[in-house]
């Protein structure tokens, strides 16, 4: 570990950390690109590099890209990556109130905090986490998805039916495409473009980005609504200290969901956001520019990054597409993942871990000078901003698969999102349903096949524990504890 630290603390490697983080932020900020593309673009450039250099650069790009999605989420209401979807919910309203700098400051600090804790877990607790990860099979992943879906119910206490209907609408959309078990095409109407289902990012860019441009065009005002950009970056950074419970809770959730293969940052930031917002005393202010919403989304999001690498490094099981690419890069540089990795190449590995940790700290150094420039976007005249945001949505959607039909899907979801918002349907429910749908179905089908029925629900202790927790989480918001305690006192 000490040798790894001294290898990482060279000017060259620290410079690479800064460069990688900067490139990652730009890639992550552009909708439709994200960490997967950022890391995969890097691969050909690393052929001539040493393994340490390549890994440090990759770590910087990965961390920067995961954070970078929050920039467009906050400034123009388009999630740059699936991991930044929840950031839109409070980040963009803050920008609309002229508090873009505060939102950016909070997201940077929360990302740096969550990512740093995650990197430390990766470094010191990989053996512990890997023992826990081994116990999570398809049955456990299924009930985790159920837990994720249950937060839709608690997030919409006041509009119970509407919130759940939004979630089931998202689930219904997620059933379009191939059946994960039989492989049959479902609900494609004979259209080959729908064989892979509705692309998640195209739908999300539409629901948030295009819907937002329709609103801005209708109201004929810029994002900040004619107000100046107020608030300071430092207020945002201090917010993670002012709200330690939200920061720590979100980080813990991100660490956990990141380590479970197949979950990752996409669902993690939504589930963390919804759990924290539903349990907060000021829950009615969430979705209207509460800085805790930004902290919850970003801390959990970046906390998944380090722990997602644990099953990849310890067992060679990539938990996400990015992790699969990371594994490919490691193999290319002669690093064989698996249980013996920590004994075979400890110096290289720990140099990578230290570089990864420094990349999370570098976020603050690289992002803060750029924030004032980025924040000016919110006061651009709407006549320039609105069509350019629409163009960016189209570009982001098209760049995912290179299909024109994805652009049409984005625009359809844009109109849908616009009217759903008018009808006060919670967008977080639709998105949670979309992101968890295929995962829930495939894990359920596999569980039923493996365990020959439903008995896994009561014979596996972890499954039972998560189910009980899910039931408690769903019931608690509806229990009036004050009434019960007052009755008891009388």
């Amino acid at each position, binding site marked *: 570990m000490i040798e790894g630290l001294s290898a990482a603390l060279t000017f060259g490697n620290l410079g690479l950390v800064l460069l990688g983080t900067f490139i990652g932020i730009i890639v992550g900020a552009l909708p439709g690109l994200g960490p997967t593309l950022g890391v995969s673009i890097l691969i050909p450039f690393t052929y001539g590099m040493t393994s340490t250099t390549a890994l440090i650069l990759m770590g910087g790009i990965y961390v920067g890209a995961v954070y970078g999605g929050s920039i467009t989420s906050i400034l123009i209401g388009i999630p740059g990556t699936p991991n930044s979807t929840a950031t839109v919910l409070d980040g963009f309203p803050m920008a609309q109130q002229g508090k873009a700098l505060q939102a950016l400051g909070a997201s940077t600090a929360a990302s740096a905090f969550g990512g740093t804790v995650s990197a430390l877990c990766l470094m010191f607790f990989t053996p512990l986490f890997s023992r826990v990860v081994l116990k999570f099979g398809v049955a456990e992943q299924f009930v985790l998805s159920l837990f994720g879906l249950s937060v839709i119910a608690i997030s919409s206490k006041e509009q119970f039916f509407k919130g759940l209907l939004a979630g089931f609408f998202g689930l219904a959309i997620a059933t379009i495409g191939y059946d994960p078990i039989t492989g049959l095409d479902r609900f494609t109407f004979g259209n080959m473009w729908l064989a892979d289902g509705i692309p998640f990012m195209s739908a999300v860019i539409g629901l948030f980005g295009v819907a937002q441009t329709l609103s801005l*065009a209708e109201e004929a005002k810029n994002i900040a609504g004619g107000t100046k950009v107020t608030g300071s970056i430092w207020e945002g950074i201090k917010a993670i200290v002012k709200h330690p419970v939200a920061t720590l809770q979100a980080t813990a959730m991100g660490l956990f969901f990141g380590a479970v293969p197949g979950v990752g940052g996409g669902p993690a930031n939504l589930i963390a956001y919804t759990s924290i917002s539903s349990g907060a005393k000021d829950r009615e202010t969430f979705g209207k520019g509460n800085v805790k919403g930004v902290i919850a989304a970003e801390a959990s999001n970046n906390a998944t990054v380090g722990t997602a690498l644990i099953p990849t490094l310890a067992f060679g099981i990539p938990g996400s597409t990015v992790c699969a690419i990371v594994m490919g890069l490691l193999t290319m540089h002669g690093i064989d993942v698996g249980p013996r990795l920590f004994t075979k190449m400890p110096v290289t590995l720990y140099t990578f871990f230290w570089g990864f940790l420094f990349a999370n700290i570098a976020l603050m150094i690289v992002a803060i000078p750029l924030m004032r420039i980025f924040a000016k976007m919110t006061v651009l005249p709407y006549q320039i901003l609105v069509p350019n945001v629409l163009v960016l949505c189209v570009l982001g959607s098209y760049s995912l698969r290179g299909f024109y039909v994805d*652009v049409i899907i984005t625009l359809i979801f844009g109109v849908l999102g616009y009217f759903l918002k008018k009808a006060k349907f919670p967008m977080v429910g639709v998105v949670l349903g979309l992101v968890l*749908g295929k995962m829930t*179905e495939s894990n359920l089908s596999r569980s039923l096949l493996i365990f020959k029925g439903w008995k896994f629900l009561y014979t596996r202790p972890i499954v039972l524990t998560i189910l009980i927790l899910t039931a408690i989480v769903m019931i608690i918001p509806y229990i009036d504890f004050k009434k019960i305690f007052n009755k008891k006192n009388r």
Partner: protein
Amino acid sequence: MKKYFNIELIMTLVILLFIGVLAFQGIVVDDLSDKAMNFPSFVFGVGGILGVAEIIRNVKAVQAVEKRSEVSKRKSVFKNKKNFVQFALMTLAYLVLLYLLGFVIASIIMVISYGLIRGYEKKWVIIVAGVGIILLWYVLFTKMIGVRMLTGVLTKGLI
């Protein structure tokens, strides 16, 4: 009856219609196997019940407002219908132009025409910013990141 038709009810009906169409497609048209329809049937069933429950809640809410003799002035869905329709039509035209002329030309036309139609004073800023930003995306995405741009049917090979 008209008083019950607010945007919340309409969107609930849209969701129910969507679920109904998928269910019809799966059960009647494609005649999918039980295995393939297990999870969707659960989702459609629960979604249908929730939709009906939401419709009932909505109707009761309207009736409650009437009972309180409040002036239930139907609020318009749009804050400014003209602006919305104008932008929606321009977006549709943009979609068609994308197919015919490709990303670069269609986007330049969209950005410049919207700015001019909405009456931004400095016309030269609209034109320069429009062309400049689109060309920046083109260079960034195609030359630096290697993402292929959408080419139009009429401009294949040009850009």
